[in-house]
């Protein structure tokens, strides 16, 4: 529905853009690791699975730093978690606020990805500690499943957070959660593939390229839905005018190489080097144009 907007800009800039970008990669990497573990061939993609888990935690560790730096009062970051209203106290969880739900999800995801990271690192180094034993059995699969669900949430809730506002563009569409998730998974797939190049076989690389392609298909679907919903709201011009169209070209190039990778089941030669760069730039540009253009 076409709503007139009189809200002013919250002035969310580079810290938020970087956070949205890294949250997508961290969540996406963990989900890819989980899919490789739970659905891939037994041991076939073990190296890529480990790398995915080893990527997720360090990346998610940067996220709260960015969020804290963006606050007007960084020393009060914990007010998101603990109620400091005089006479009240206790835990702060506001279910109707995606920012509140997201902070909790991010905290839990960081915890689960830390456990997975420690176990994976220990395993890589030939350790047989408690974490390795836990992760090897059915309990480990449950931890990975929980981490994957949290990863999906962390990679997508940032879009919902923007939508739950009265800003032009952000509040005119329901597609941002799915769009951020699919694009985050796409970026994560190429990042994991880059780390896996020397440690995993050509088959794993091919499968990661195919996964990136499928994530790009989902992203493309959500881009189309995004513009349909903005068209109905009369705000599509906001994300296309004032030179923003150039960023959409970058988004389009990233999608194009991912889809080509799907069609060809991987890229060879110079394209194998260029593809991950274009994909990551496209995912970054997508978030930049959506965050900055309405502000």
């Amino acid at each position, binding site marked *: 529905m076409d*709503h007139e907007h*009189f*809200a*002013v*800009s*919250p*002035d969310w800039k580079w810290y938020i853009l970087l956070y949205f970008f890294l949250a997508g990669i961290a969540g996406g990497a963990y*989900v*890819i690791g989980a*899919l490789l573990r739970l*659905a*891939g061939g037994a041991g*076939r993609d073990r190296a890529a699975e480990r790398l995915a888990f080893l990527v997720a935690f360090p990346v998610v560790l940067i996220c709260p730093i960015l969020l804290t730096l*963006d*606050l*007007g*009062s*960084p020393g*009060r970051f914990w*007010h*998101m978690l603990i*109620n*400091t*209203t005089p006479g009240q106290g206790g835990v*702060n969880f*506001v279910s109707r*606020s995606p*920012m*509140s739900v997201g*902070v909790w999800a991010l905290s839990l995801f960081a915890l689960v990805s830390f456990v997975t990271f420690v176990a994976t690192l220990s395993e890589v180094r030939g350790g047989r500690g408690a974490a390795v034993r836990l992760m090897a059995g059915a309990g480990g699969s449950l931890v990975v499943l929980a981490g994957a669900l949290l990863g*999906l*949430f962390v990679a*997508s809730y940032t*879009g*919902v957070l*923007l*939508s*739950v*506002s*009265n*800003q032009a563009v952000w509040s005119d569409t*329901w597609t941002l*959660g*799915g769009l951020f*998730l*699919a694009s985050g*998974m796409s970026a994560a797939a190429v990042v994991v593939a880059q780390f896996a190049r020397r440690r995993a*076989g*050509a*088959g*794993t690389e091919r*499968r990661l390229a*195919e*996964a990136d*392609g*499928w*994530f790009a*298909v*989902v992203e493309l679907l*959500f881009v189309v839905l995004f513009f349909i919903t903005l068209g109905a709201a009369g705000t599509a011009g906001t994300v296309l005018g004032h030179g923003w169209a150039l960023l959409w070209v970058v988004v389009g190039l990233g999608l194009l190489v991912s889809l080509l990778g799907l069609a060809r089941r991987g890229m060879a030669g110079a394209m194998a080097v260029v593809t991950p760069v274009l994909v990551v730039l496209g995912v970054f540009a997508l978030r930049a144009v959506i965050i900055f253009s309405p502000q």
Partner: protein
Amino acid sequence: MSVTISAGTAYGFFTDTSICIGCKACEVACKEWNQLPGNPPHFLGDSFDNTGQLDDMNWRHVQFRETTSAQGGPAWLMMSDVCKHCNQASCMDVCPTGAIIRTEFDTVFIQQDVCNGCRNCISACPFGVIGFSGDTGTVHKCTLCYDRLQAGMQPACAQACPTQSIQFGPLVELHARADMRLVALQSQGHDPILYGRDDNVYGGLGAFFLLMDKPESYGLPSTASAVRPERNNAPGYLGALLGSVLAVLGGLIAFRRRNETEAQ
């Protein structure tokens, strides 16, 4: 006008724009009482307005909207804008820290010692009322003079208004006064509207207005556009769920067990 103020009663403002003369006494009184230095003055080129907008330094803003009268001559729409203290406050809905509370006077108040400056409320407020201060690292808006109410005094702006365009009191009384004023103006051939008097705008506004033109002319969302951010929670999460299902499906297709030659 003397008002006895007691906790547990809903208080607010009735701003009658038909008698606003644009003197800005409300802006001055607000800044004086709340010790707001204001922004550095600069020429906006917008009629007699040199305030610009509501923000962390301006909790009252007198708008000057130059328009044309029914007779074809020049006319001004003047309105002293302020936080609406909505019954269904969008800022409260999204605040992750619980810093924004409803007081014992049914007004909306930002606790400065709880706010951490995330600015989520700014993105949610449909009226563009809340402003961020780099000096305090928190957000600010009209408190409806919470400190004065606690001391039994009416808000500074209402006390300073020389034409009683801004009236303060129990909302029940203000509604009755507004209804009478509406009838009086209609009998004189005008076509005013009461904005936010009923619950069709954010459940009713604690600071409601008598307007001489449509709301959009004053920078206010129409009844149809007055929507809450939380309306997008369910569709937003469902969109994320749809994306999750499709992406996981794509991953399963790519990583599924299948007979293929491994060139490892």
